[in-house]
């Protein structure tokens, strides 16, 4: 009987340990979200630009010119007209460059959009600094309104030599419906951002990926 009792106790303790392991693995599934984000930030994979805000380059490299191609894409069912003002600019590393995109809302309603950027080749992502970008903010446009949306960027002089062209792509998403359900000023963030964000730039959605 004593033996049976001991077995019973040990079964319980194995049960407890393994249940705890399952709960931890459930947590690990969610931990993969920030881990994945951190991994992409460190390695610059996935074409995500994480260098945002004021930046002073460590010098400039006028010996070469980098072609920066600007691409505008509408996400499915996004009716806005959306295009780059200058489809291609040429800059030297270290030069601050101003560019702009043009958006026009042809519908009869007020709509809110969010632009999601992507860089190709992804290796270049960590050398691109966005001082300012319309993709930092949501873009509301009234019916038939159009707007020039600015972008200010610098390319790091450390950019490897073999990269001579960088493609900067923006996909415009219609997020009007997520705005309608919340009061714009307060709960935007809780509504649309991932749980893993730092709070250096309030009221921007998806800023951790810019």
């Amino acid at each position, binding site marked *: 009987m004593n033996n049976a009792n001991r077995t019973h106790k040990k079964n319980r303790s194995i*049960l407890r340990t393994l249940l705890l392991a*399952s709960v931890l*693995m459930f947590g690990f599934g*969610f931990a993969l979200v920030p881990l994945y984000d951190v991994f992409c930030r460190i390695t610059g994979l996935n074409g995500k630009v994480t260098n945002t805000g004021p930046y002073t380059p460590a010098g400039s490299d006028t010996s070469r010119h980098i072609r920066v191609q600007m691409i505008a894409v509408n996400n499915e069912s996004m009716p806005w007209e959306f295009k780059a003002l200058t489809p291609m600019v040429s800059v030297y590393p270290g030069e601050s460059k101003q560019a702009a995109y043009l958006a026009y809302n042809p519908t009869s309603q007020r709509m809110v959009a969010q632009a999601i950027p992507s860089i190709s080749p992804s290796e270049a992502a960590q050398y691109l600094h966005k001082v300012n970008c319309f993709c930092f903010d949501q873009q509301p446009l009234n019916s038939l309104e159009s707007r020039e949306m600015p972008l200010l960027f610098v390319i790091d002089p450390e950019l490897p030599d073999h990269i001579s062209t960088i493609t900067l792509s923006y996909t415009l998403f219609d997020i009007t419906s997520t705005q309608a359900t919340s009061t714009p000023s307060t709960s935007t963030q809780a509504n649309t951002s*991932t749980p893993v964000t730092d709070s250096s730039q309030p009221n921007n959605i998806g800023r951790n990926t810019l």
Partner: protein
Amino acid sequence: MMNTMTKVSHTEHHGPASGLGRWFFTTNHKDIGTLYLWFSFTMFLIGGCMALMIRAELFQPGLQLIQPEFFNQMTTMHGLIMVFGAVMPAFVGLANWMLPIMVGAPDMALPRMNNWSFWILPFAFAMMLSTFFMDGGAPNFGWTFYAPLSTTYAPPSVTYFIFAVHMMGISSIMGAINIIATILNMRAPGMTMMKLPLFVWTWLITAFLLIAVMPVLAGVVTMMLTDIHFGTSFFNAAGGGDPVLFQHVFWFFGHPEVYIMILPAFGIVSEIIPTFARKRLFGYSSMVYATSSIAFLSFIVWVHHMFTVGLPLMGELFFMYATMLIAVPTGVKVFNWVATMFRGSMTFETPMLFAIAFVVLFTIGGLSGLMLAIAPADFQYHDTYFVVAHFHYVLVPGAVFAIMAGVYYWLPKWTGHYYPETLGKVHFWCSFIGVNLTFFPMHFIGLAGMPRRVPDYALQFADFNMVASIGAFIFGFSQLIFLVVVIKTIRGGSPATAEVWDEPHGLEWTIPSPAPYHTFSTPPEVK
């Protein structure tokens, strides 16, 4: 505590309860094993009907029988039901029946939880199947349910799918905990770890895989749930999420999952081949280490499912080589099986036929897997019928054949009767021919570029598709022979001896056939 223990020991030798209540309230590992096996066979037939619907539509080019929307639901539900409803519960059923006997334990470690982990399943699958009758139909986004197909563009029934996955995840985790506790804590005195039968070893490792990855699956469907209903943006690019993240989290579960479906099969085959070759298994300890290495490697190769999403070169290379590394322990296993058969006094009863077919056909599936692991070539093979051929070769003549081999092998022990050998062999040959007719041509049409999960195809693929469809119907209907064999054996047949086969090894052959309702109430001596 002492009181209940004493009470139990007084009533220890009662038989099963009578009536339906026996099945609802049973905590007997043999009853629960039987329930699991019948459940899994039912799901196998339901999932099989969906496969036949797919093959019927693909018999000829053009749309004949079903609409593309319904075709998508068929491919999705076929995959989900076969993976979670047929293959996994079948292995858990075999584990329930055999593990306690093989380690010399009176029952599973946590019998009441055992009852729970089975009875959750019928409800989970009832919920899953009920989606067919809902507005917008059943899930149609493929068994891998990639976001945003399964979030933004999913039919409303996706919520039921999510909860069904939660429930079957809970069931699997409870089953796995039970199996680990039984193996670690309930072994008869003298049954050391390195004396455990290989079926027990492979299941121990599988159970750890289950505990590691089923919660991650639960996590990923929970993220889908909050994305769909609570406004989060885990997988939604507009809100700062990333659809590729879905694929990473899913395949972090998904790749160990494929080993969950094959490791117990390795174990079954490692039991059967020595019996019918009349030799001890060649390289027992290398089998244990190979299984453990496969389990470890399964955690660091998941990205080979995503070679085409746009990875940096280093990523492609790492996951390509890590994947190829798996061929080494797998090769060790195949070598050991062949070496066990080498110069053995082999006979070819039905379990052995299925086991040999397993070794040959699983190796074919493994080699096409090696081809898919070559990252630059994978860009050509990705999402074609070559992939379909590959994973069906490892899952149907791999996992499913091993389950059938196990059922034939242990059926005399369960029922006390020998199964009709001729009918068993007819079942084997029909299945063998059917499986190869179905899946071998898919290699060719895949390499030629036919995409998977599409209800129509270009004319040049017509002949091979017709062959595959004919093979699928042969394979599908020959499973009814299996059903007949099992029912006939339960009802009668020549009485089986305790040993059943010719000097097999293992504790299960020391108890009478049919196995008494309670076995090893006093632990056996293990030499």
